[in-house]
């Protein structure tokens, strides 16, 4: 059965995308607003995070408790959060209550009370999240990685920086909300047991008279030079991140990169897992995954291992990343293809997964990809075609970051 996906664009620039899933009782949505860490006002890193906390502390006619109770009474399972490029508000519930739930979120996003007395508590929670990074070294590594890889606003931590968080006052948050929580470039993505006409009508009613355009995203650059940095921390395991540039979604060779990555890290049969964990027992966790941004992408590899084995782990990982340019076997390609397509089919069973994936597609390339699109793109790539591509596009200029008791040599 072909997928039933409809896209609309409201006059204010908010995209609405709906996938009607037969036999599904739930509806899931993702509302994406272009207010992320990258557009936090200068010197106010963490502003988007504070706003995301503050807007749930009362909106429309409801105070914080009434808001929370109303969502629970509808059975809404809540999700979302602040990223580099945007903030998302997602949820899922039984289809019949969708309109009521979205109306509450319209209040949250458009009409938050932003009570001044709550700012210190919200700021305190964010500061605690930053403090707790030391007790989750993997998370701390990724947080530091972005700052190092993308110097400037694009690399900011979505949690912000303690000194800058302290400088954000109530008036500047109000101004920030008015400047950034705006519809243009935003996405409302809905999937599940619901018809597109009903979603469009609800979206028009709740968001049609919302007007404005948030500030443009900064234009980051992928690193063109190799880099190694070490972060000192007395941990039981050395944390390793290895990154290199890749192709963004929408690029004609995107699926070549994706299949190459599938051979490297798509499953437990992939090269990194086989060479680093199964054969050598160097790690519990090792993988490489894509980080997709608008117009650019990188691949980020990760491993954690005890310090005395960190050097060998880095060496094996780098060797495997380089070896991909020698080409892959037919069997490897077939597994990578199957893995990608099977994951898509299974994603199609979950309304939440579909709503999230479509919102991301809309943001990155302005249209949702269907399973048929992806199948056609993946099946059109032959072994020779993939190997021609891989041999002429060797991964290079690795950025390597380690966190632990001692550095490695790179």
């Amino acid at each position, binding site marked *: 059965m072909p997928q039933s996906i409809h896209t609309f664009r409201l006059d204010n620039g908010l995209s609405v995308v709906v996938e009607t899933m*037969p*036999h599904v009782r*739930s509806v899931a949505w993702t509302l994406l607003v272009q207010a992320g860490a990258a557009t936090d006002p200068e010197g106010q890193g963490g502003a988007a995070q504070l706003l995301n906390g503050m807007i749930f502390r009362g909106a429309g006619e409801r105070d*914080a*408790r009434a808001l*929370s*109770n109303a*969502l*629970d*009474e509808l*059975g809404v*399972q*809540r999700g979302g959060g602040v990223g580099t490029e945007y903030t998302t508000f997602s949820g899922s*519930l*039984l289809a019949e209550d969708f309109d009521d739930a979205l109306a509450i979120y319209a209040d949250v996003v458009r009409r938050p009370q932003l009570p001044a007395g709550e700012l210190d*508590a*919200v*700021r*305190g*929670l964010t500061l*605690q*999240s930053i*403090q*707790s990074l*030391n*007790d*989750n*070294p993997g998370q701390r590594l990724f947080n530091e990685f972005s700052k190092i890889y993308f110097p400037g606003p694009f690399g900011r931590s979505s949690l912000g920086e303690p000194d800058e968080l302290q400088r954000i006052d109530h008036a500047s948050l109000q101004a920030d909300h008015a400047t950034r929580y705006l519809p243009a470039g935003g996405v409302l993505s809905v999937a599940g047991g619901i018809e597109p006409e009903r979603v469009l009508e609800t979206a028009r009613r709740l968001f049609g008279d919302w007007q404005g355009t948030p500030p443009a995203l900064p234009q980051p650059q992928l690193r063109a030079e190799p880099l190694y940095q070490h972060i000192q921390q007395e*941990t*039981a*395991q050395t944390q390793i991140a290895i990154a290199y540039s890749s192709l963004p979604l929408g690029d004609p060779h995107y699926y070549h990169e994706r299949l190459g990555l599938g051979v490297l890290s*798509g*499953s*437990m*049969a*992939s090269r990194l*897992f*086989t060479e680093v*964990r*199964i*054969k050598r*027992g*160097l*790690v*519990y966790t090792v993988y490489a995954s894509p980080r997709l941004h608008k117009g650019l992408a990188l691949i980020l590899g990760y491993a*954690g*291992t*005890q310090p005395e084995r960190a050097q060998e782990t880095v060496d094996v990982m780098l060797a495997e990343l380089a070896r991909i340019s020698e080409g892959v076997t037919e069997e490897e390609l*077939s*597994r990578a293809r*199957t*893995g990608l397509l*099977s*994951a898509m*089919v*299974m994603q*199609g*069973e*979950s*309304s939440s997964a579909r709503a999230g994936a479509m919102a991301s597609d809309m943001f990155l390339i302005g249209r949702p990809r269907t399973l048929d699109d992806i199948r056609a793109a993946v099946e059109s790539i032959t072994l020779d075609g993939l190997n021609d591509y891989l041999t002429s596009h060797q991964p290079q200029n690795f950025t390597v970051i380690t966190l632990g008791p001692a550095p490695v040599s790179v």
Partner: protein
Amino acid sequence: MRYDHHTLPNGLTIVGEYNESAQSVAVGFFTRTGARDETPEISGVSHFLEHMMFKGGERYSAEEVDRVFAGMGANYNAFTSNETTVYYGAVLPEFQERLIELLADMLRPSLRQSDFDTEKKVILEEIAMYKDRPSYAVYDLARMTYHHGHPLGNSVLGSTESISALERDRMLEYFERRYAPNNMVVALTGKYDWQAAIAQIEQVCGTWQPMDTPRALTPPQPIPQERMQPEPQRDRVYLAAVAPAPAAQDDSRYAADVLAWIIGGGRGSRLYWALVYPGIAQSADISYYEQDGAGAFYIFASCAPERTTEVIDLVRSTLQTVQAEGITEEELTRARRKIASGLVLNSETPMGRLTSVGYDWLYRQEIEPLSDTVDRFLALTAADVDAVLQQRPFDTLTLVGIGPLAEAS
């Protein structure tokens, strides 16, 4: 939904929840074994053995196991708890037979010495990984302290020492004692072919020999206690508390779940408003763990060191207040609604239902249709929740903490 059930002559039970509109099939082999079935000398063997199953049986090598899974595009893994070990995969319906064939082969493992030696290093890395995460370490400490010697307090991972000393033959001996067909359940969910499944499982697993697989079900003897483990290198304090709760076989488990949700099931709960909303703690929540013969409530909180006493006092007073005064009708309505909606949403994928279906049989030898579970939650009354509170679970609180603290007991 259709419910299926079949038991082979050797005691292996196969259960299923069929969903015509699903796109995939999920299959799980559920084994009634885990850390509580270990002695101190083999601490961690259940979990280590779970890893070794992926090294293959007669038919496949370690690398081949993962290649066959990946060739099907399977979403697969395994997990070990204190009392169960589960191996599962989800695939497109055309791969049902291959998936069952592979899982069944894995569960009669070769335990090759070279694989054992390499995988031991992986387990030691996993132990090291959790050493860096006090939010996990505090859970182990709480479980161990609460049970003080009872096998339910055993660590799933084991220690660096117990794993380093473990020998392959001890693992084989443990495997032979625990992985008997009468101690296992195969669960299927989604769009499966039932007749094909039982015929294949009978053929492949029908020769597995049943045996006596006893488990000590003596109840834990918790006592009120407090124990702080100083770790000066930490910036934050991680607290955990444990209290007795209904067992997995007890009908009051639904009420226990609702009670936990009201006290600390996330945003909107009492612990959230008392501790997280005002920024006193970064997190504070409680969950109900149903376990074989003896359930427990687990409470977790994290905070800045200087607020530790305040957080402990607020956790204790929140628990005591609900125990003394009960819950409100409004709280009950919201909790029932939220849990019911979560159950329905989660059931839309075969993987989302697999654990519930497998555990239903493992713990209770029944399959409760999803709609019955939803109805049981929706029918709960404040009196049902009061019945759980009348056992006064929070009078017997074990509270532990990790962080830059002074030692106390």
